[in-house]
C-alpha cells in the first residue's frame, strides 16, 4: 500500500503539470497533498499528516481557488450593434461574438462581455480593467493613440442621410462613429458633430439640430428597425464611402493584442472570416 501511494505521487505530479486549466491543476495539487498526508500517516507521523492535511489540502487549495476565481476571463466591453454583437434569447451572437468566442476558447478563457455605449466603452478600458473594445468598433484618432488597434475584420458602406430639400444647408452633420479615419471625400470631414449614441443622433436629427446623418449602414439599420417611422422614408440615402471595423485592445494587454491580431490575421487569410461575415451580413 505504501509503495503504491509512493508510486502515485510522481504520477499525480505529472498530472498536475499537464493540466491545461489551472483550476484542474490546483485540484490535482490538493489530491497530491492528500496522498502525501496518507504517506506520512502510514510512516507513523500522524502530527505531520494532520498539518499537511490542513495546510496542503485545505488552506493552499482555498487560496489558489480564490486567486483564480476572478482570473481566466477575457474582459470585453462593447456597444450592442445588430449583426455584429447582439443579444438574442439570452445568447450573445454576431460577427464580433463569434470571433471573440473562438479566440477566448483558444486561450482557454471565459468570455465576459459588458455592454456600454460607444463613448463609455473606451473609458472602461482604462478604469475597469477591460481588455478589448468590440461591437463594430471604428476608432477615433484619439482612440488610435490610447488603444492598440487590430487588423480590420469587416468593411461596410458609409451612408449619408439627408432631408429632401435641405441640400447645402448650414446645419452641421452628425455621426456616432468617428469617421475621420474612413475612406471619405474630404469636404465631409469638417463640420462634423460626434454624438455618443444613435438615440441622441436620431433625436438631434428629428429636432433639426443636425441636417445630415453620416452613419455606417449597420447602425442605420438599427435606427430604422427601432424607429420604423416615416422620417427616414422621406429622406435621401446615399452611399458616400466605406468604413472598416477593428478591435481595440488596452495598452496594458500587450499579449492579448498580439494573440488577437494573429488570430484575426489567420481568420482573414482563410475562408473562416468570410463565412462568418456571410452568415450575418448575407
Amino acid at each position, binding site marked *: 500500500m505504501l509503495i503504491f501511494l509512493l508510486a502515485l505521487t510522481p504520477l499525480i505530479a*505529472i498530472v498536475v503539470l499537464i493540466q491545461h486549466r489551472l483550476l484542474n491543476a490546483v485540484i490535482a495539487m490538493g489530491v497530491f497533498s492528500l496522498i502525501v498526508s496518507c504517506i506520512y500517516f502510514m510512516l507513523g507521523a*500522524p502530527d505531520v499528516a*494532520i*498539518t499537511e492535511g490542513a495546510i496542503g489540502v*485545505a488552506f493552499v487549495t482555498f487560496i489558489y481557488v480564490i486567486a483564480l476565481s476572478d482570473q481566466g476571463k477575457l474582459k470585453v466591453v462593447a456597444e450592442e450593434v445588430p449583426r455584429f454583437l447582439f443579444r438574442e434569447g439570452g445568447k450573445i451572437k454576431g460577427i464580433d461574438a463569434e470571433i471573440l468566442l473562438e479566440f477566448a476558447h483558444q486561450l482557454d478563457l471565459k468570455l465576459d462581455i459588458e455592454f456600454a455605449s460607444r463613448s463609455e466603452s473606451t473609458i472602461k478600458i482604462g478604469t475597469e480593467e477591460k481588455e478589448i473594445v468590440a461591437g463594430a468598433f471604428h476608432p477615433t484618432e484619439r482612440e488610435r493613440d490610447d488603444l492598440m488597434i487590430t487588423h480590420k475584420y469587416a468593411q461596410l458602406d458609409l451612408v449619408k442621410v439627408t432631408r429632401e430639400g435641405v441640400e447645402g444647408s448650414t446645419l452641421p452633420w452628425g455621426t456616432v462613429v468617428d469617421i475621420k479615419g474612413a475612406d471619405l471625400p474630404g469636404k465631409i470631414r469638417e463640420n462634423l458633430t460626434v454624438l455618443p449614441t444613435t438615440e441622441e443622433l436620431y433625436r438631434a436629427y428629428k429636432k433639426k439640430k443636425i441636417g445630415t446623418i453620416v452613419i455606417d449602414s449597420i447602425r442605420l439599420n438599427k435606427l430604422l428597425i427601432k424607429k420604423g417611422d416615416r422620417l427616414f422614408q422621406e429622406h435621401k440615402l446615399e452611399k458616400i464611402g466605406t468604413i472598416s471595423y477593428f478591435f481595440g485592445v488596452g495598452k496594458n494587454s500587450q499579449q492579448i493584442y498580439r494573440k488577437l491580431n494573429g488570430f484575426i490575421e489567420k481568420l482573414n487569410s482563410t475562408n473562416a472570416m468570410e463565412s462568418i461575415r456571410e452568415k450575418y451580413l448575407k
Partner: protein
Amino acid sequence: MNSKFKPVYSLFILVLFGGMVIGILATHTPTDHRTGELYMSNERSKTGIPNVVTAIYTNYRLYDTILELFVFSTAVLGVSFFGKISQNQTTGSLQSAESQVIKASSSLLFPVIALLGVYLAFSGHLGPGGGFAGGAIAGTSILVISLSVGADEVGRRFHEQRMKKTEYGIISFILLLGFASFLADKHITTPGLNVIYTITMNMLIGLKVFIGTWVVLHFFIKHRGEA
C-alpha cells in the same frame, strides 16, 4: 507563451529534483541516533506528555517553534503589505455563495470544523494535532462561514487591525515565555505543571496561526481578481 514546451521544462525540473531527493535518500545513512534516542527514552518521565512530538516542539525545541512562527508571520506580513498597496482600488469581495445548499451546509459545518480546530490545538499533548494544524483548520473554518454570511460581514466581526495586534501580542508572549525559561536556565520539571504549560503553548500557537491564516485568506478574498 510557448505553452507547448512548458510541461517539458517542468518535467525536466521534476525529474532533476526527484532524482536528487532519491539519490540523497539512497546514499545517505544517518550515523548519529543518540539525540533522538535520548528524547524518546527520557521524554515521558521528564515532561509527562504522552505525545513525543509535542513535547519536543514545546519543550526541547521551543526556539524552533518560535522561529517557525516568525516565518509564518513574515508571510502574513508580506501578504498584508502587498494588499495595502492596492487597497484604494479594491472592488471585488466574496459575496455569500449563491447556492442555498452551500449556504445552509456551510453554516452547519462551520461549528464542527471550528471545534475540530480548537480540539486539535487543545489536545496536542495527548495525541496528534497541535497548535499549527488546529490553528490552520480553525482559520479555514472562517472561510467556510464567510461562504454563508459573506466575507464583508465576517470582516466586520473579526476586526482585522485588532486581530493583527493580537497576533503580534501572542508572538511577543511566546517569545517572553521562551526567554523566561532561557534566563531561568532550567525546564519545568514537574510533569503536572508541564502539561498546563504545554496546553497553554499549543493554544497560543493555535490562536496565532488561526489569526495569520484568516488574515491571509481575508486579504486574498478582498483583493480577488486584481491583476
